[in-house]
């Protein structure tokens, strides 16, 4: 047997990777909402985003993972850091961090969590046990086929895609107009 050629072998150590990434995502998610300093929060959020990108890879969604890294971690988070540096936070980190109704918010969120967990435990049977192995190698091509269509036909989501581009255009214009000093 050619040792270099065992193509198609099952991924190894999946549970470990899953638990590691999930723990990283949740713990740094916790740091995001508890840190006093906004830059620390942003860095924690980047760790969360990258962990979630890893989870996407484990779910056979490499293109979404790539988009997650390039748009979220590389683009949006740089924007966040940029803004945090622009708005002076020296003072902000010394003030009260939580608003007056924080017990209410916490309670509501905990109730939401309980709701989720309850729903999951109740509806566990509804979730099929199968875990489909999506073809990883042509993931991008399939996504493209859905978005843009293939063989001359329009894709299922081509119209939605165009709407999304319009949304981005509006967002660009809005951001530019809002941040301009004198219009």
């Amino acid at each position, binding site marked *: 047997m*050619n*040792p*270099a*050629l*065992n*193509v*198609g*072998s099952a991924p*190894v150590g999946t549970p470990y990777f899953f638990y590691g990434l999930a723990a990283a995502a949740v713990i740094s998610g916790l740091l995001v909402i508890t840190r006093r*300093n906004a*830059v*620390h929060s942003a*860095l924690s959020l*980047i760790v969360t985003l990258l962990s979630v990108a890893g989870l996407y890879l484990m779910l056979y969604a*490499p*293109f979404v*993972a*790539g*988009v997650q*890294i*390039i748009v979220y*971690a*590389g*683009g949006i*988070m*740089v*924007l966040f*850091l*940029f803004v*945090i*540096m*622009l708005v002076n936070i020296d003072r902000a980190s010394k003030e009260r961090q939580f608003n007056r109704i924080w017990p209410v918010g916490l309670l509501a969120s905990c109730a939401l969590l309980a709701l989720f967990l309850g729903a999951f435990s109740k509806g566990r049977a509804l979730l099929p046990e199968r875990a489909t192995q999506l073809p*990883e*190698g*042509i*993931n*991008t*091509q399939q996504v493209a086929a859905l978005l843009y269509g293939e063989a001359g036909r329009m894709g299922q989501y081509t119209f939605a895609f165009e709407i999304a581009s319009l949304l981005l255009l509006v967002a660009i214009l809005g951001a530019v107009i809002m941040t301009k000093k004198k219009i």
Partner: protein
Amino acid sequence: MLNALTSYLGSPVTPGQAGNQLWALIYVLIIFAGVSIAVMAMNWLERKALAHFQIRLGPMRVGPHGLLQPIADALKLMLKEDIIPSEADKTVFWIAPLIGLVAAFTVYTVIPFGPSQAVSDMNIGILFMLGVSSLGVLGIVTAGWASNSHYPLIGALRSSAQMVSYEVAMGLAVVSAILMTSLNTAGTGTLSMIGIVQAQQQQGVWFLFKFFPLGFVAFIIFAIAMVAETNRAPFDLAEAESELTAGFHTEYSGLRWSLFMLAEYAAMIAVSAIAVTLWLGGWMRPFPNLLNAPAWEFVFSLFPGLTFAALAGFAFLGTARMPSHSFFRIQRIGLGVFALLLAFLALVLFVIAIAGRNTDTSLAAHTREGIDYVYWFMLKVAIFMYLFIWYRATWPRYRFDQLMKIGWKVMLPISLGVLILTAIVGVLIP
């Protein structure tokens, strides 16, 4: 044992695809060591070449012709006191160089040095490369912020704005190259780095010359944007010493500072590798389809040996020209030994080229092929490295608003236009 080695070397897929973790680990280590050595060599080369541009000699004291200077520098930086400013945010200050370094080195997992000479071939290879290399900006931004000082902060803001803006033009130029990969009978393109080079192989043309001048313009856009991405002259505003003293790493010293340098040079090599992969045919030797006779194959496989022989010749020349004063004796011996080492390497490469000239499946043939792939890839990357130095010696620095103007008002429209034209031409000329 020999069979196993042959099967590894002759494997048609990368270790990542084969799921062979040991082999992948070995590749990772080789690439890590190779990049570190390349960065050191680049450091020496930059100082020497820049010095000769500027009628200086450059490093001459540490080792013959300063050959050991990078090692001395590295030692000095490791032994230097590591200062963390008292007002700095210590955690972030500590993490920042690591972010840049990790981002710069992670990129190398998908760089194809050959059809199977890569750690892994990802389906989203180029997307992964662009994404991860864009994470490098986080290191710069956090470093500038954590220093809690004005100049680093301005440097960080400058470089983050710069890198985010040039990523747009860069991405569009890359997309126009990726569009070219889909010009086959199946009509499906690929984002995989190896797939991109194989598409060039199938179409029989480097994408640089595809739809001339469209591919060329896209390449130029990328070549400019990659200089801006890596914060090198004439776009080195983030560390403009005459304006911001040293920009984002003003407060850094010692090992941490050297990590920034390591990340910068590693990122330079990485973006050059992207350019080579996308437009210059990656690992392919010149004219693989025109001069495809076995004799030509043999002639081109002699190039690695010839290169090292030429380097050895230069080193021997340097040895001969060194003043015959007792003061230079040790340097002379050192340079001579270095020349011998290069000559020995050349000899080994020649032997491999001759032993593996028949394209059978022997170990020598696989080794020869691998060496050829890596050689041509590295040669193309080295040309870009030299260009980086040349730019730095020749040009003044752009001002920040001019940089932004070029990024958004010149590069972006041109790359958009090239993308649209490429799509139209691709449809019209199947």
